[in-house]
């Protein structure tokens, strides 16, 4: 009986370890913006890029060669609403001088970013070397019409198909103002 219980225990432990590795439970760290605007939790595989970041732009590189996560504070936006700002931005991305071979994959839809109403969309475009890139973009208009954006991009469609990373980032997002 004791032997059976022991075996069962071992099986359960192995199962948990196996499931954890399959599901991909990640270690994460808390990132707080140096200006004290926001904080969130980011998976350990994502590395903060100090030399590409500024007080307005925070950049992380992921494991893949094209994996990129960045948060941008844009200053005052004069559009009336986040809807018109997001629509204008997406329109400009698709116009001449915007992104090459731009294609909107998922239209703008409502996103809640820690109590602030935002809009998110996914699109693809080609970089200078012709690599097709996927990007998820969230637009948020903070008080006093301060524009803010969260973007996640890669050369693989996982940024759109697999929302776990973005869900985690948004789930732990806290505004500090």
């Amino acid at each position: 009986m004791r032997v059976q219980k022991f075996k069962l225990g071992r099986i359960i432990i192995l199962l948990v370890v196996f499931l954890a590795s399959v599901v991909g439970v990640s270690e994460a760290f808390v990132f707080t913006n140096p200006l004290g605007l926001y904080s969130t939790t980011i998976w350990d595989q994502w590395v903060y890029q100090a030399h590409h970041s500024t007080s307005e732009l925070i950049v992380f590189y992921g494991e893949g060669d094209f994996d990129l996560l960045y948060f941008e504070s844009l200053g005052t936006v004069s559009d009336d609403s986040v809807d018109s700002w997001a629509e204008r931005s997406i329109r400009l991305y698709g116009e001449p001088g915007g992104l090459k071979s731009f294609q909107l994959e998922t239209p703008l839809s409502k996103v809640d970013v820690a109590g602030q109403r935002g809009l998110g969309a996914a699109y693809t475009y080609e970089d200078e070397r012709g690599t097709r890139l996927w990007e998820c973009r969230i637009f948020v208009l903070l008080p006093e019409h301060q524009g803010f954006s969260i973007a996640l991009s890669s050369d693989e469609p996982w940024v759109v198909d697999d929302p776990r990373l973005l869900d985690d980032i948004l789930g732990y997002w806290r505004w500090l103002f």
Partner: protein
Amino acid sequence: MKIIRFHRWLGRSITVLLLFVLLSASVQAAALGERFERTLGGSAVPEILKQYGGEYILPIGQRMWVGEVFRRLAEVTERGDVEYTLTVLNSSELNAFALPGGYVFITRGLVSAIGRDEAKLAGVLGHEIAHIEKKHGVNAVLRQMGLAVLLEVGVMALDLASADLLRVASATLLQLISLGWGREAEYEADLVGQALAVNAGFDGVGAVTLLDDLFAMNSEDLPMKIFRTHPDTKNRRERLEKALASFWSSPVVVEDEDVVERLNVGRNSKQTRRNDPNGRYSVLVPEEGAGLHVFDLQTGQSRTWLQDVNVFDFAWSTQGEYIAVLVDEGSQGQLWIGDRWGGEKKSLSISGQTIIDMCWSPKGDQLAILVDGSEGRQVMVTYLHANILLPVGGEFTGTGSLWLDTGLYFVYEDKWYHTSAPKVLPVIVQNPVPQVLQRQRVLSPTVIKEGNTIRLTRPALTLP
């Protein structure tokens, strides 16, 4: 008696009537003139677009940045009647020009050469706007057509827009664009454009450094039309450099006792500042011998910069990127500026004069220097990235200086004087959209070990 009164009344009435007619005629003439200018300039636009490969749409961020620089310049123009528009042309040529009526053009080649230097962009766009402000184009066309007399009677008393004359004027305009509006017009546009840039919150030095860049790039294999259409570059540069000092405020004595006390304290503490702002180096001027002793607090090693030169003062820039050193070379004080690795960035000596004091601007891109010569002492300002020397002390001379956020202070006959440069404002895009970033390719350096030194092939950096 009644007849005399009637005559007086009649005389006054006729005078008032004449004045009214003249006034309304001039107002009408001005309105017609504006319409004529716009029509004339507009008639040449299709040909310009054809010649220069059409309009080029810059990437979103750059387009907004260029547009914001142009908007700020147009906002400070004096002619309220002109609607200014900017078109980027799809040409690799380095060129910019303006047509009457508010049409300003710049090639993508010139935008690319300017990069993200708003002072240079404001310099070139200010110059082109100044041509329109001063009606150089329309005046040159009328002069060329032998209609100079119209200039003297107010130019635009005729509505030329509806006449066949417009066709001839348009053809003349296209001819003149490649030749320029004339030497004097170019000189005037330089100075008016520089003043526009300064009024719009840009550093007027941009017009000078842009000429330096173009002058350095000017070779026969470059299609530098900008030089064909513009007069002697050296002469223009001298005029622009000279004008820069005029934008500084006239020195005034500092009356506030508290400020004077703080300035005295600041001046004394300046003498003892010896560590670089990043805390890596401790620097000493040896009591005997020459050079500057640099002790690296990180590696514990020391070395001597400027070994064979007698050093008598030095100062780190605010960010610690550069060090300015006053050296005594051949009994003449000179200024030497090096980077934080000891490499020379710039050296400055003024013929027949000795540099006896210096201090950095708060941004670390300019230096105030005190020059002593046969004509007495002078307070001057030099730029880190440009060969420019501005006398900013007016008729005053100084014995010491401090440069704070509020301006440049110098001592003259035991009193502090204050002067300041015009305000330079950063370019903030009015209605931004989020930028789209891409990962930068990481170039791994090759590590080569040579004795006790590690050398990295890329970036070119040597670590002790």
